[in-house]
């Protein structure tokens, strides 16, 4: 049997979040998975050590293009802990509003790309058209559609005038109504349900063991949300309920993300109603005092972790960032290994891979090792997706 190798680069019409998975296969079922994320490594932590704290913010915002408000917020909260100065309440509220807005845009984007992935182009067009309303609001509030850099060290960059507040409330009504429509479509549309139920199963115990985070964990029935457990910014005083769903599969993740959108809308409304007066920014010196700080923020994809060690200088001695998708890799592995009754067909790999909404690196190839026959071959993700359709998976 000749090895079956496809040297195809990371080209993909849809938005690929490529990741080299090495699957161990026994015949049809997948028994082991390994990952290679080396394609995306840009050496950000090394760069951060060469920049001062204030210069580091633009770089941190560009770690992930979709959930950058979360990265910026986590970075500023982290550095402010070194100063231990009081940050005005208005700034905390405005940070919360922009963070929730970027969560809405990220979840809407994911709904569109998931539909695009299964060939449902019309839903992709509709969700992304409605997302434009949110992008306009982000642009008018922060000045840029995506890399907003709205939260600065010491507060926020701009104040939010009252006319923007009214426009934002109007946009929220539109988003709420459209999200209800999309949730109804996701629930009733037979083809979506047919392609996602029972696929990518992750039991609550496994989710906990592999330290999964965010919607993936909450879709397995585990109630864990940093905004509730360890509230930051203004989350302590803006009530919201943590959405969980217990069917532990790709379908549950769709529902969790759709209903989280509604939570974001209600949070933004309450935050805007109680927006406190006062300054929106405090001037902080260039050099923070020595020490270390650790902050966690609930990014759209899960719990984001920043840690810094400062020796009193302008530049951080060490800055560690752990993105949520890296944590979900373990969960993806648990999803893809078949255990006893729950058998993972190679065909389920692409759908469950898409369901953790990965956002890291560049090669969608899967490296097969058939432990029994000692053969190995490489297929791209699209190849598996297609072969799974055809039901014939072994060369």
């Amino acid at each position, binding site marked *: 049997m000749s090895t079956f190798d496809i040297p195809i680069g990371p080209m993909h019409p849809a938005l690929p979040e490529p990741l080299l998975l090495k699957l161990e296969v026994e015949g049809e079922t997948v028994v082991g998975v390994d*990952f*290679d994320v080396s394609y995306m490594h840009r050496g950000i*932590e*090394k760069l951060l050590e060469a920049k001062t704290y204030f210069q580091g913010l633009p770089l941190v915002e560009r770690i992930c293009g979709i959930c950058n408000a979360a990265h910026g917020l986590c970075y500023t909260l982290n550095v402010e*802990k070194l100063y231990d100065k009081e940050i005005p309440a208005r700034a905390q509220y405005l940070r919360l509003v922009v963070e929730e807005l970027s969560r809405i845009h990220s979840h809407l984007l994911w709904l569109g790309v998931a539909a695009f992935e299964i060939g449902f182009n019309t839903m992709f067009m509709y969700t992304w058209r409605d997302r434009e309303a949110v992008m306009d609001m982000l642009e008018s509030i922060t000045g840029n559609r995506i890399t907003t850099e709205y939260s600065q060290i010491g507060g926020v960059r701009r104040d939010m005038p009252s006319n923007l507040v009214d426009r934002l409330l109007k946009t929220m009504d539109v988003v709420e109504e459209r999200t209800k429509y999309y949730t109804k479509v996701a629930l009733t549309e037979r083809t979506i349900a047919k392609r996602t139920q029972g696929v990518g199963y992750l039991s609550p115990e496994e989710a906990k063991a592999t*330290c999964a985070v965010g919607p993936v964990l909450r879709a397995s029935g585990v109630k864990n949300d940093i905004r509730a457990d360890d509230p930051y910014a203004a989350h302590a005083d803006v009530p919201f309920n943590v959405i969980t769903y217990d069917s532990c599969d790709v379908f549950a993740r769709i529902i969790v993300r759709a209903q989280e959108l509604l939570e974001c809308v209600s949070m933004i409304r309450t935050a805007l109603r109680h927006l406190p007066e006062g300054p929106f920014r405090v001037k902080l010196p260039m050099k923070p005092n020595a020490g270390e700080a650790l902050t*966690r923020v609930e990014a759209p994809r899960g719990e984001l972790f920043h840690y810094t060690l400062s020796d009193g200088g302008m530049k951080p001695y060490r800055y560690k960032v752990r993105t949520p998708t890296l944590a979900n890799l373990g969960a993806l592995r648990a999803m893809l290994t078949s255990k006893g009754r729950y058998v993972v067909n190679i065909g389920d790999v692409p759908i469950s891979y898409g369901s953790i909404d990965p956002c890291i690196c560049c090669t969608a190839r899967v490296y097969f090792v058939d432990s029994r026959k000692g053969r190995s071959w490489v297929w791209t993700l699209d190849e598996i997706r297609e072969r799974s359709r055809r039901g014939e998976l072994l060369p």
Partner: protein
Amino acid sequence: MSVEEETFRELKDVFGDRILDFKIQKMRVYVKVPSDTYREVIRYLVLLKGIYHLETITGTEVKDGIEIMAHLGTGMPISIRTTVSSEDPRIASICDLIPGAEFYEREIHDLLGVVFEGNPNLKRFILSGDWPEDVHPLKKSFESKHNLPLREGFD
């Protein structure tokens, strides 16, 4: 006695003087232990206290070696730090206690060269395929300016 002091008090009773020093911030507990009891403390926290979530493992090159810090817990993270000599950086892996730790350990192995004994596959995780084995970018000695010669284009 806030929650932080309480948890630290429990750790202190169990491990006594093996806890070298500690630091308590709002909702945060840092505990420094020698490298051989690092795994014991984590096993105690995971098995007896039922803490299942490992945030991440941070590796930093400090004056007297490489400091490994594991952050555990969901609501209030407890950080267990230990230092390892930089000539022969070896430490016990915690993969069997928490399966999720494998990627973090492999990342530190790539970037700082720390060997985690017991990690199931301590292969290359984050650096690119043709990166030389012994060069670890996060070490202070590694200057990011004169980095490895990038192959020139249009060859």
